[in-house]
């Protein structure tokens, strides 16, 4: 069975400092992994996806994530936070493409 755990419900960083949002997954197969962002009153937006190609995945808005099979992790990072990055972030796992499991989300706060 597949599952995903986001290790932090809230993360606060200062503007201009690095961002790290942590995600661990469990899957019986080689999963596809995704990160989504949700801004208030806006639809979920895909940031990036991993589908067994390069382990370091680059996404939109300067975000990237590294797939580490040995650690069953898919952490999301950004070198320098911007105020507009404040939002809810979801890690998603999919084994077969049709069943997708969302994590509970991490709220990212950006301090001025």
């Amino acid at each position, binding site marked *: 069975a597949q599952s995903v755990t986001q290790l932090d419900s809230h993360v606060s960083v200062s503007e201009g400092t690095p961002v790290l949002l942590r995600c661990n997954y469990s899957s019986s197969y080689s999963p596809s992994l995704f990160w989504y962002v949700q801004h208030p009153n806006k639809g*979920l937006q895909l940031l990036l996806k991993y589908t067994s190609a390069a382990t370091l995945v680059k996404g939109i808005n300067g975000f990237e994530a590294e797939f580490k099979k040995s650690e069953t992790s898919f952490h999301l990072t950004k070198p320098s936070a911007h105020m507009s990055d404040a939002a809810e972030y979801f890690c998603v796992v999919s084994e077969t493409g049709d069943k997708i499991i*969302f994590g509970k989300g991490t709220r990212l706060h950006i301090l001025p």
Partner: protein
Amino acid sequence: DAGVTQSPTHLIKTRGQQVTLRCSPKSGHDTVSWYQQALGQGPQFIFQYYEEEERQRGNFPDRFSGHQFPNYSSELNVNALLLGDSALYLCASSPYLAGGPDTQYFGPGTRLTVL
């Protein structure tokens, strides 16, 4: 292109009532999925419609039902509302049935409050 649109944006109902939520998919998309996002939780898959039929279903009771119309728009119906049905209901459309999560475009959601 208006993207995925949902109506209404907010809705307040009382326990035991019935509710209908509506979704218009992105232009060119023929598959619609519905998700429930409770407060503080990630979205949970309810069901998916393609060619006016329910193709997949998550772990939700029969009180949750849906419909897809010939123009690909969709409705989510919930009967006998419970307090626990209070949530943000998200609609997502994709251009084909077998597409993965990255092919789905999400709407802004309908916030349902059950009193």
